[in-house]
């Protein structure tokens, strides 16, 4: 008996797929279930295939699931498109009457529950756009999701569109429910039953980053809208003013990072979020942040590249840009959260590291992580530690050396308005005072200072996750959002007796060298799964540790399934 199942609602962009998915998600979460969502949609506002997938169950979920248990198709194209992913004994809810025949190889085994979605919406409700609500009704009935919970979610989510809309939505929902009740022929095996209220939040990666920033004490956000990072801005625009913070929509990404640097120079914790094209535009100022030693946090919710690429698809192809983007040798920190909860923790780490080391910190999320919702434990404010910037003391102010050479490389930073620690935040190479200086020895000294700051970071935070058998000869090492699929695969492999160890660094620059060396030491096969074409992380590992690795790259804009990882490891082990 599986402890969880996967629902996919598929249709066309504009049919309200996302809204229906969100309603079911919230209703399931309120019913006490864990959630892991996954959705795809075109870059265009209208037209093109769109789908919202919800994996739900009693236990913590870490990936979107390998296949679909319940497929809801709002139109015939969507049905044809998605049927291949439906399990052989899955449940199909499509648009039609019971007589509707399916031209699919699975049609015998699949539990076919056609619902006249369009008819009910257009004729009985009188609003074609209510198709998505009809479908929710049917789902509520067939999967035994509490009627009143869904009803109240629908109210919350759609009431601000006016009472007329709400009424129609509720009617459509009811009609869908009733139709399914009357017409269902077989018992439906997808019933996880009641489970009781949960304390968890159901939240996306982008929201977790925004929430974490707010809870870290960040009160300044500037950004330029870009898919798939915009919702992070929109959430903060709603919430930051209430806590005395500011959100500015800048005229472009260069300006956004400029504002962040200015705010940080003035003493604020500040950050920006963008996607690849925006990060490309920011790299000049990232160099300035590194040179002038301005704490700053930059989130990159990666999408398919290069160029404008595939704005609504996921990819892990900005690692090189995060590590190396900007001219000159510029120190910086790069973090990679592995799941939604980790987004929350890593942005707190980002602010702390950036304040402590006066460095730019880049967080690499991606579209799949940014937009998927997961159930996470409620963060507790008291657990959040905040690092403070080193400030100059009164005696240091007298002959103030903003860029004083210290053993750790970190120098006390004065804040305008606070005291007489006048200095110029300097983008030119400079001496300890911040005065421009082109002396050869000085350049070496100062460059070394700026890189010295990276040396102590491994002691600061829990920089990696590691599990599995330490003596295993097969290892998996990856970064970022792929961790969930790897963990699901690992658990299957482990249960089947395959010896595998898994390593996920949370900090990609500087890498936790000692721990990685240890991990790599006695591995014969090292799988490096990445959602990119060139194997950017694999190349980094090779360069740093001179060790042969086995890259596993996918490059289609969608995340790994656990199955893909599982199969590859089995193949490697059985070779």
């Amino acid at each position, binding site marked *: 008996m599986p402890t969880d199942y996967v629902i996919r609602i598929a249709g066309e962009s504009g049919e309200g797929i996302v809204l229906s998915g969100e309603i079911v998600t919230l209703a399931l979460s*309120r019913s006490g279930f864990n959630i892991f969502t996954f959705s795809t949609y075109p870059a265009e506002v209208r037209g093109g295939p769109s789908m919202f997938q919800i994996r739900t169950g009693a236990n913590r979920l870490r990936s979107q699931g390998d296949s679909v248990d319940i497929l809801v198709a709002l139109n015939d194209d969507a049905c044809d498109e998605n049927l291949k992913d439906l399990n052989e004994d899955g449940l199909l809810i499509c648009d039609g009457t019971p007589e509707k025949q399916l031209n699919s190889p699975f049609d015998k085994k699949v539990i076919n529950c056609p619902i006249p979605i369009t008819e009910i919406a257009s004729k009985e409700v009188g609003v074609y756009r209510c198709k998505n609500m009809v479908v929710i009704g049917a789902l509520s009935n067939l999967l035994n999701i509490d009627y009143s919970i869904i009803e109240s979610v629908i109210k919350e989510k759609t009431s601000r569109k006016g009472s007329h809309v709400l009424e129609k939505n509720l009617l459509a929902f009811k009609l869908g429910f009733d139709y399914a009740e009357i017409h269902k022929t077989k018992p439906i095996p997808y019933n996880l039953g009641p489970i009781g209220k949960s304390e*968890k*939040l*159901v*939240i996306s990666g982008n*929201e977790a980053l925004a*929430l974490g920033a*707010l*809870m870290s004490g960040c009160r*300044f956000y*500037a950004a330029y809208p870009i898919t798939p990072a915009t919702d992070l801005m929109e*959430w903060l625009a709603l*919430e930051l*003013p*209430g*806590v*005395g913070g*500011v959100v*500015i929509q*800048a*005229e*472009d990404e260069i*300006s*956004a*990072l*400029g*504002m*962040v*640097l*200015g*705010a*940080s*120079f*003035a*003493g*604020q914790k*500040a950050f920006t979020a963008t996607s690849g094209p925006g990060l490309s535009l920011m790299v*000049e*100022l990232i160099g*300035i942040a590194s040179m*002038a030693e301005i704490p700053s946090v930059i989130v990159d919710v990666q999408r398919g590249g290069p160029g404008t690429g595939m704005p609504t698809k996921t990819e892990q192809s900005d690692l090189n840009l995060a590590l190396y983007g900007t001219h000159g040798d510029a120190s910086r920190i790069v973090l990679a959260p592995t799941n939604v909860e980790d987004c929350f923790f890593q942005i707190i780490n980002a602010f702390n590291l950036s304040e402590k080391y006066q460095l730019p910190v880049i967080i690499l999320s991606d579209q799949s992580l940014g937009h998927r919702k997961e159930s996470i434990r*409620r*963060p507790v*404010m008291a657990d959040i530690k905040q690092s403070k910037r080193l400030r100059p003391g009164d005696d240091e102010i007298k002959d103030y050396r903003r860029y004083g050479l210290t053993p750790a490389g970190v120098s006390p930073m*004065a804040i*305008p*308005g*606070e*005291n*007489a620690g*006048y*200095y*110029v*935040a*300097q*983008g*030119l190479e400079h001496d300890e*005072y911040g*005065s*421009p200086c082109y002396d050869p020895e000085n350049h070496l000294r100062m460059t070394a200072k700026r890189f010295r700051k990276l040396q102590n970071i491994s002691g600061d935070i829990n920089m990696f996750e590691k599990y599995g058998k330490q003596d295993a000869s097969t290892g998996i090492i990856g970064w970022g959002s792929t961790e969930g699929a790897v963990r699901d695969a690992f658990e299957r492999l482990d249960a089947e007796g395959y010896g595998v160890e898994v390593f996920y660094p949370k900090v990609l620059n500087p890498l936790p060298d000692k721990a990685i060396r240890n991990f790599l030491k006695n591995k014969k096969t090292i799988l490096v799964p990445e959602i990119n074409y060139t194997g950017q992380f694999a190349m980094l590992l090779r360069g740093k540790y001179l060790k042969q690795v086995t890259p596993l790259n996918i490059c289609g804009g969608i995340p790994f399934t656990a199955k893909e990882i599982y199969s590859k490891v089995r193949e490697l082990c059985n070779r």
Partner: protein
Amino acid sequence: MTRYTPLDYIGRNKPVWCAGCGDYGVLTALFNVFSQKKIDAKNVAIISGIGCSGRLPDFIKAYGFHGAHGRALPIAIGVKVANPSLNVFVVGGDGDGLSIGAGHFPHAARKNIDMTYILMDNSLFGMTKGQFSPTSPCKFESGSSPYGTLEEPMDPIALSLIYGSTFVARGYSGPSKLNDLINLIRQAMEHKGFSFIHVLSPCITYNKVVTFQSLNAQVVDIDEKHEITDRNEALALALREEKLYVGLFYKITKPTFGERLITISEKCGKRGLDIERLYVNFT
């Protein structure tokens, strides 16, 4: 600070400008404004881009940010919004502000950020040794335009007016107008909102066309009768081609960005950090 003479604002570094450079006039004017107003240097932040003019923060006692070419305005916005009690200045050249930085100027102006932008205009790129700039006169011959420029010069005053600056003035760093420049900068600093001063500040090393001499002959004070609250009149004055007017073109009062931000906070009812309320979003 305990003393406030102009000399008390001299910075750690000696100016690296050529002797005679127009930029000295702006620096002197700032020393004097700070002195007149007994400004505590710890409350001043001077943000600059890159260029000869952009080196100014190094030469004055104050907080400074010498960042990237063309990005002074966004950085300054961050500074001012993060700490509204600072006196924020932006200084930079015609290249910095109107060439690479051209996209930021309208957006800073229309936000009406309460700060003062001093554009030090020498009609060329001084730092990179004399290429033409957006304010170079027609057919200007320079290293990058050996046969003369092909484009029409931009007029910073007209731009600034259209962009929505609430204080627009032109000064001249020549000795004859130094006192006027001091007054303009003081007024700009006192103005609540985005104040813009276009300062004619010749490059004596590379510019053989726009010089102290040529400017002395061209600059004309704005008539006392000019109505400074009339934008159309100010525009007409700026666009009159025969004359190069110096003085205050335009000044009106409008809510600043900071003031508007406060209204937003109030709209949100200053709810403070209520984590449980935030969590309602996710449950």
